[in-house]
């Protein structure tokens, strides 16, 4: 059902490279269609800052790196009906988390560690199509689901030559897909930017690497131990 009023949307960013917000702009003409359906009331990138109290949808890019950002995230949560974590930094901490992987406690926190997140859009950067789809689904009141397909399965569907068979350390088999296997399709191994797939079997991948004499990185071992969600672990 389409609501009577245009939903009010705010787009915010914490610690990130801003690539995911640029991905929203990269929607191009589809973004202009979204502007007809949604009322963007707060978005620094588009230079919009209206007066408002409540938001229907808050989209937050980036991970929480400081106390100020934690406060900001809580403020946004309080005034918003739905909060979407946009991109890997918000979902898992991504490169910020990799940087302080050895710090205890970690300085970087994924958004879900600080506030309740209603939906996560993974990827480094996000896929603009997925973003579009999620917003339309919210508008239509549909239940949002993440596809459980792996990068590996999508790669097979695209009939690519397998990099793993060539002895290249590809993380496709354990990584959440829905990215159309961009990297392996361009002859580059997947490095897991969309986080772990629902049924990721890391033990099996480590065995597959061993069988092919592929060196096992410390991150993969750490990942297996922590089963920490997401991140560009390699």
């Amino acid at each position: 059902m389409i609501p009577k009023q245009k939903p009010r949307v705010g787009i915010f960013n914490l610690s990130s490279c801003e690539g995911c917000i640029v991905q929203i702009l990269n929607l191009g003409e589809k973004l202009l269609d979204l502007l007809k359906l949604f009322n963007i009331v707060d978005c620094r990138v588009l230079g919009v800052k209206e007066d408002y109290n409540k938001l229907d949808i808050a989209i937050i890019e980036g991970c929480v790196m400081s106390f100020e950002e934690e406060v900001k995230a809580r403020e946004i949560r309080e005034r918003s009906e739905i909060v979407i974590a946009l991109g890997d930094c918000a979902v898992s901490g991504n490169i910020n988390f990799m940087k302080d992987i050895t710090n205890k406690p970690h300085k970087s926190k994924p958004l879900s560690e600080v506030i309740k997140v209603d939906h996560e859009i993974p990827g480094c950067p996000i896929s603009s199509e997925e973003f579009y789809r999620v917003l339309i689904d919210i508008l239509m009141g549909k239940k949002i689901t993440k596809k459980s397909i792996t990068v590996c399965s999508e790669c097979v569907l695209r009939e690519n030559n397998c990099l793993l068979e060539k002895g290249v350390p590809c993380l496709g088999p354990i990584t959440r897909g829905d990215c159309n296997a961009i990297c392996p399709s361009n002859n580059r191994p997947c490095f897991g930017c969309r986080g772990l797939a629902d049924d990721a079997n890391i033990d099996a991948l480590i065995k597959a690497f061993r069988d092919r004499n592929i060196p096992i990185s410390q991150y993969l071992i750490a990942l297996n131990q922590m089963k920490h969600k997401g991140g560009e672990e390699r």
Partner: protein
Amino acid sequence: MKLVKIEPISRLEGEGRILIIVDDSGKVKDVYFEILELKGFEKFCIGRPVEEMPRIVTRICGVCPWAHHMASGKAVDGVFGREPTPTAKKIRELAYCAHQIDSHALHFYFLAAPDLLVSPNASKAERNVIYLFKKHPEIVREIVKHRNYAVKIESMIGGKSIHPVCCVPGGVSKPLDKEKVEKISEMAKELVKFSEKWIDNWERNIFDKYHDLIMSRDKYYLETYYMGLVNRRDNSLNFYDGDIRVVDTKGREVHRFKPSEYLNYISERVEPWTYTKFPYLKKIGWKGFVDGQDSGVYRVGPLARLNVIEKISTEKAQQAYERYLAAGGKPVHFSMFAHWARLIEMLYASERILELTQDEDILSDDVINFDGEYVGEGFGVVEAPRGILYHHYQADENKLVTMANMIVPTTQNNAPLCIDIKKSTINIINGGEITEAALNRIEMAFRAYDPCLACSAHSLPGRLPIKIEIYDANGHLINEFRRD
């Protein structure tokens, strides 16, 4: 004495802020622009497989990931001792030209256009793309459509337009096919037309309308040295490859060097009040935050590029370049000319893409050179949208990174930016109140440089969130001003 702080929000590597120091009578004494640096990233790279660097460093910045990808790719070619094949070089240059269009378009149309088309005196609510879309949907639709041509070209070659994956040691990961090249060619033709139209719009309307502002010498004007890449053969414009050329305040060549020699020509000044370094020309020397022939302060970016080159190799862009020089002289010292320079560069990039699609080499399958002896050290230099970018790596026998050094454009523009903001600030708020309008004027000094604050904490695209705190001599907060 009062301390006025203008603080933009934090970024990947930290934050940026402006410190304005005002004396008791309200006169501006000093202005500092501070950005935290990329050192975190350089450390973070150590111990990682060097061939993966081009895919890691893109994460420095989501607005100009291609610049880091290309500079890194070239540095890694050097580490592996592999000269890319001619086809690989052309594919890289083609994608990189598309990126210049993408990034310049993002800056010019999304950021500058609302100001220039709506009016800089309009209220805050009216100076943004969404408002512009309500008022002139057809203009915005056309802009968005054409920018997305560049984005599509990037994705075709890099897999993704943001954080591309194509550069590998000695070439690119995948050849181009005929169907793609034809599509690219069609889009390039449209981009040429579109860029010409906007240059025309600039020359006929915008430049006239803002003539006094653009051509004023008491603000947005610095006489400095300029640094940029030039084509080795004929000193023409080249974003991807060439010699590094430095011209003085009169436009005379003073240095010309290869990427591997950069440390002989660039030194970095450390100031006690900031973590940021201030690169300057080693042979001229650091004379403080001043411009002029005796000061080693230099500028990079679109303005600098069009000052160091002698010509543009494509026909239409060359004509536009001649008209640009006729208006601004050579070298052009007016900071606001950078907007005009961006439009000319977009035209050149569009024409160059078209040229490359017609090159027979572009369809060859020979895209990686596997020969070459592992060197363990490499230098990669490209013209990022915001200016010249240096990547320098060393790696051990296991091909793991032992040292990474990156000098980003915004850091190089740091000293001139401080000087320009100081000059502008003295003129704009001297003794007077700090108003919304005054802040806009200060922001305009920023925008001309398009400082990338994610590549040192990105402030763009969009309005700069500004926080000003005014302290009295005892450090008590007496006033606060905030604009998000």
